[in-house]
Every structure is written in structure tokens, then in C-alpha cells.
């Protein structure tokens, strides 16, 4: 479910850091640099990157289509390919038996076994459909805050590191304490906040 759905789950972030050079040029560069790339390198099991919020197949963003007023609206698309382990095991067994018969050897060395397994995995990857996940991100550039449409740890880790890689900015989750340091502006209150310890709310 995207951020624009009727019911949404949102993680709120503070965007920390400064963009180098012209702000909007750097944003554009970051979006294009981190645009979605399919799984195309051997060994890769994840393809990831920004796509348009209203169309997860659009990774070109013509005319800076991600821009809505002061907001940058993006989706992080994550394609994952997983070869079922049992299928891989069956194929590896079949192929190693064939190889042993051809070479007349008793067993494969661990390097040969590893190489065979990788080769079979790459072949099988081409026969499996990826699972496609799409997570929305809205970045309010005027308030340096971002809303991410998922709570799952893995999705959050991915968006935090991808955002850093593309824009050089840090997404800091607005957990209660960090939000509290922003809401309390009085020095005495901030000091009291830092020294707070949990209290018992029952007698």
C-alpha cells in the first residue's frame, strides 16, 4: 500500500546534512544516479532503485516528474530473486554426478563444487520471476523531513542506505527522544530531558 492510499504506515525521518552545489541540481543528480536497475550482474540477487511513485516501471523521471511543490516524491523498487534451495540442491547433485562420471573422479574439490553451484544458480535465476516490492518515500525539502511507507527493518535499512548513497544525506528516524530534543527548545527542559529516567506509573 502506497503513501497515498487511504490507510498508510509511515516511518518519519529527519533529513540531516547539506547537499553540495545547487540544491535542485543535486537532487536531480541523486535521483538519476539511484534510479532503478534490474538484476543484471552475476551473483546479484537484488535489483533496487528509485522509480516514479505512480508507475513502478518508470525510472526516467522526464521533466523532474518526482517534484511536487517542495516535495520530492519517489518510490524505492526492490526486485529480489530467490532460487528455491531444494531445487538448487537437486540440480547441483545431478550435475556433479554427471561431471564425476565424465571425469572419472571420486569427488569434486570444494572449489569445483562452489563453482558448479554458482553456475547452476545463475542458470536457474533466469527461470525464476523476481518478487517486486515498492515503497513510497516523500521528502519534504522545506522541513527536512521524509515519510517512508513501511516499518519493516529490512525496507528501512535499504531506503536509509540508498538515500545516503544517492544524496549524501542521512535519514535519522524520528524516535521519541530525537523528536523530543526538537520539540523542547528551552535549555532547562532539554537538560531535564537528557537526565530523565523511566518512572513507575503504578504504585
Amino acid at each position, binding site marked *: 500500500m502506497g503513501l497515498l492510499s487511504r490507510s498508510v504506515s509511515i516511518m518519519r525521518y529527519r533529513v540531516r546534512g547539506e547537499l553540495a552545489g545547487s540544491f535542485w541540481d543535486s537532487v536531480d543528480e541523486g535521483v538519476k544516479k539511484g534510479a532503478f536497475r534490474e538484476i543484471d550482474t552475476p551473483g546479484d540477487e537484488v535489483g533496487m532503485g528509485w522509480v516514479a511513485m505512480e508507475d513502478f516501471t518508470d525510472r526516467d523521471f522526464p521533466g523532474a516528474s518526482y517534484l511536487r511543490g517542495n*516535495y520530492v516524491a519517489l518510490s524505492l523498487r526492490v526486485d529480489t530473486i530467490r532460487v528455491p534451495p531444494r531445487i538448487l540442491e537437486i540440480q547441483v547433485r545431478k550435475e556433479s554426478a554427471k561431471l564425476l562420471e565424465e571425469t572419472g573422479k571420486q569427488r569434486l574439490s570444494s572449489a569445483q563444487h562452489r563453482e558448479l553451484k554458482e553456475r547452476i544458480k545463475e542458470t536457474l535465476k533466469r527461470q525464476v520471476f523476481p518478487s517486486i516490492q515498492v515503497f513510497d518515500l516523500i521528502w519534504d525539502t522545506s522541513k527536512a523531513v521524509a515519510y517512508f511507507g513501511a516499518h519493516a527493518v529490512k525496507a528501512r535499512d535499504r531506503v536509509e542506505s540508498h538515500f545516503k548513497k544517492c544524496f549524501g544525506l542521512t535519514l535519522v528516524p524520528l*524516535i521519541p527522544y530525537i523528536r523530543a530534543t526538537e520539540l523542547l527548545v528551552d535549555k532547562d527542559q532539554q537538560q531535564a530531558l537528557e537526565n530523565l529516567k523511566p518512572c513507575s506509573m503504578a504504585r
Partner: protein
Amino acid sequence: MTQPACNKEYNIMDFLDLLSEKAFLGREFLTWLWFKSDQSAWRIEIPGKKVVEVRFLDKMTLDLSDADTPQTVTLKGEYSGLREGLAALREGKKIEEARISVKAADNDFAMILKGKWFSFGSLRTPPVLPASEVDEEEPLEGAFLEKVSLIEESMEIVDSLFEYFLKLRTSDRWESEELPGVRRWVESSSG
């Protein structure tokens, strides 16, 4: 760009320490919010600001944060939570997450507010006008901006309640008035 009041940088270890050491803040806030809402017939008056209507709905999770092993209890079902929830509070548990509704002006929002991460689950805003009914040159952008403004409104309401709590929690009034009030409320509901 407007910068936030606090610009402190956090490295990952600082952040993880903060997350675990200060997790009680979110739990205490939710527990206090329930007390405040129950005591004021759902209408919480934030001094000098506004009145916010806060209702605790059909789901609540409480846990014992200081225990060596997690002790969690989840309550579901409309109005059923009150008795069991207060019983869990008497055991020293605090609210980790709750489905609540908040309303400060015309708009009503429902959400599952989570104490540890201060995140918003299943946030329901009032409906946005369909793009076809928005009288603008760029209807899609209009619908987007309206939805984002509703999301922000809901967060501002929660922030204003959290700020009210923080000001009390960091003042002398917490120990002298507010906390004894919470404890009396927890206790008075026994039996």
C-alpha cells in the same frame, strides 16, 4: 531550508543506545495519553494551544520494558481493553502501541501509534477528493498535496500532544501532581 531545532549528529552506536535507553519516553507518553484521555472525557486541552479529542480504540499492546525477558500483552476488541489494560498497568507494564483516533479541528484521524519508534501504523486520514473532481490544472499534484497535508496534520496533532507531555514530564509538576494522578487512576480502577 528551515533547519530543525536540534542538529546533533548521531552515529549508529549513539542511535542504538538512544533507541534502547530512551525507549521509555514513547511508552510513558502513550500511557499518560490514555490516562489524560480517560480523565478528560477524551478532550485533552493543551494549555494555550488547542483542544484535541483523543480516543483509544480497539487494540493495545503493553509490555514490561525493564524485565529481563519480554512480557507483552495484546488487547483487542472495542472497549474490552480498559479493564485488562489497567490490570496490566498495575503490574508495571506500559503501553507499547495503541490504536487511537485524534481530532483537533474538522478532520478525524485513526492510527496505530508505536511507542518505541514513534511511527504511525495504519494511518487513516479523511478521504482525498478524486483527481477527476479536483478543479485544478494539475489534478494529480492537487490530490498528492492534499493527502500529504492531511498526513502532516495528523502528525502535528500527535506532536502537540507529545510536546505537552514532555513539558510536564520535564517539570517539577510531574512528580508533584501528574504522576500521582496517573497512579491514582491506575489504582482506583482495581477491584
